């Protein structure tokens, strides 16, 4: 076993940290307040590979391993939850499915633009009446000659207003159970597609999430992504990878919370000593650091497993479940250590606490991830028949 990073991974981690410290962290409060991402920072990301983490270099990406991609997400989460979430969705949920299942023609058509830093990609799975239960997807795509005609609506679609293209989960064969779904690439300038104004959210307020309506939206037949009828399976595989990235964002947010609390506890005094000298506060810090380390290891373990080509579904769910619940506790205690100031918008904890809350909901709720883990466990330990 070897826990050390390669030279390349370490140099990348340091470079992303200094980028985030200069381009994102100082603006995190402003971005949250205005509800708008700092696009000029995103425009600088292609040189570092942040908007094409695992996209081949031929299409403008950096072709990093999954550990490097997770390290980048940790740094983004540490600096700015909103930017982190949008960059995560862009890389994992839009670019990766195109890299994985796109034809050469689709890759050449979409990836160079997606990795340009001028736009962010998007995926549309969730619907007003179907979230966790993807089988409930109603958005219908039917064939008409050389075109797909799409009707229905989607909800909570991150980056839709910033995207040139949306990977859209549709039902192509209502009779075919788990094999009746397909992913279709829908360009955002297609007639009949309406992107509603961004939702008003509790946290990650600058990461825009929208309701979409598809009203006889026509796209060419060649926009089918992957295999017809394999949309559900492709979606689940996409979410496996995305869960590592969400876990990594949690680690970053938790690290920011802990660092802030460590600083504050050594400055603020109560009852004649520093907060950090009260054992009750020390215990909070110790628990937070321990949970953070466990979350980090689980996230990197899942990424490592992915890089080795193993089946990492269970590990990815564990990493996302544990990290998203750990950041909730860590942010809670870090805010508690700040007392009243923790509740103030003048201090970063208030924002971190709101930003982390989505992490146990998006890309599989905690409940759904527990189901995934339990199913795998029970399969692995099924009694012999």
């Amino acid at each position, binding site marked *: 076993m070897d826990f050390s990073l*390669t*030279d*390349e991974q370490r*140099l*990348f981690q340091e*470079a992303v940290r200094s*980028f985030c410290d200069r381009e994102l962290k100082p603006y995190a409060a402003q971005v949250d307040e205005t509800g708008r991402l700092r696009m000029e920072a995103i425009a600088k990301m292609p040189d570092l590979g942040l908007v094409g983490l695992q996209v081949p270099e031929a299409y403008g990406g950096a072709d990093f391993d999954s550990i490097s991609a997770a390290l980048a997400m940790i740094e983004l989460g540490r600096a700015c939850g909103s930017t982190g979430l949008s960059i995560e969705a862009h890389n994992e949920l839009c670019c990766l499915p195109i890299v994985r299942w796109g034809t050469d023609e689709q890759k050449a058509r979409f990836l160079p633009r997606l990795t340009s830093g001028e736009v962010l990609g998007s995926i549309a799975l969730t619907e007003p009446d179907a979230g966790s239960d993807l089988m409930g997807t109603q958005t219908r795509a039917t064939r008409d000659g050389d075109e797909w005609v799409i009707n229905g609506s989607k909800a909570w679609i991150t980056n839709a207003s910033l995207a040139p293209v949306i990977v859209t989960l549709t039902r192509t064969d209502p009779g075919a159970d788990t094999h009746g779904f397909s992913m279709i690439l829908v360009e955002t300038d297609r007639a009949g597609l309406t992107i509603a104004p961004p939702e008003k959210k509790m946290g990650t307020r600058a990461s825009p999430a929208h309701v979409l309506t598809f009203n006889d939206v026509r796209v060419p037949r060649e926009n089918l992504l992957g295999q017809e009828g394999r949309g559900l399976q492709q979606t689940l595989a996409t979410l496996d990878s995305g869960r590592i990235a969400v876990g990594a964002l949690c680690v970053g947010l938790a690290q920011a919370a802990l660092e802030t609390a460590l600083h504050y506890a050594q400055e603020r005094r109560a009852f004649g000593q520093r907060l950090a000298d009260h054992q009750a506060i020390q215990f909070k810090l110790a628990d937070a650091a321990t949970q953070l380390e466990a979350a980090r290891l689980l996230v990197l373990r899942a990424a490592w497993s992915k890089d080795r080509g193993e089946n990492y579904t269970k590990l990815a769910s564990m990493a996302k479940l544990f990290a998203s619940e750990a950041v909730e506790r860590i942010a809670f205690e870090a805010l508690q250590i700040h007392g009243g100031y923790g509740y103030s918008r003048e201090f970063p904890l208030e924002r971190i606490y709101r930003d982390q809350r989505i992490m146990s909901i998006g890309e599989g709720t905690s409940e759904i991830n527990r189901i995934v883990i339990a199913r795998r466990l029970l399969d692995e330990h099924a009694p012999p028949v």
Partner: protein
Amino acid sequence: MHVVVVTKSTPDTEATVTVEAGGNVNWGDKLVVNPWDEYAITEAVLLKGAHGGQATILTLGGEEQQEALKHGLAIGVDQAIRIWDPALQNHDSLGYAAAVAAAIRKLGDVDLVIFGKELSDIASDQHIFQVARRLGWNMIGFVSKIESLDAGAGTIRAQRLTERGTETVTSKLPAVISVVKDINEPKYPTFIGIRKAAKAEMPVWGLGDLGLDASAVSPRTQVAGHRELPKREGTVEMIEGSPQEQAARLVEKLLEEKIL
């Protein structure tokens, strides 16, 4: 054109520096690229981009200096060389200048040498002027802008930021310059640079490679001792009263203390 940037890792600017009981300075564990050198490295890469040719990054020191070199490569410098020899263990700035100047000579075709304006740890820049002197080249300190550079004609025209304002000077090349913050916005590493840096072979040049013997770098100065800065005592006085009264009293205080 061949640009050389000379760098050094210095203690993290956020580290608390202490003097231990035995007189040793504890600089903290973490090293960073000397913050001023970020501008020097960026300028070397920008000049290479604008004029073609190559950029080399040089440092003098032990293994701990590798990081600064990798940082330079990650930003876009082509090659990195470390100067080190046991005889340099306790070098002073003159010994440093002798070794660095010899390395620049060895590179051969150098047109311009760039340093960050000073070292952030010891707040000193004499080594830069000493390198120029050793090379016998012109030295332009505190450059805030390179107005023009013509490697073919062998000329440079640059703005210097002085305490009295800006001064525009010209010089023939090769020359040594030191740069200030205004010269550029430091570049970030690129993933292509990072990949190159991770794999790069970085030669180490000893005194033998530089054609020097130990006497050329033996220290002429000796450090007699280090002391902690005296602790500054601050007091806080809260001004009471209405906002108008508080403001009036604050202004009075500031005048009393000759701050206004």
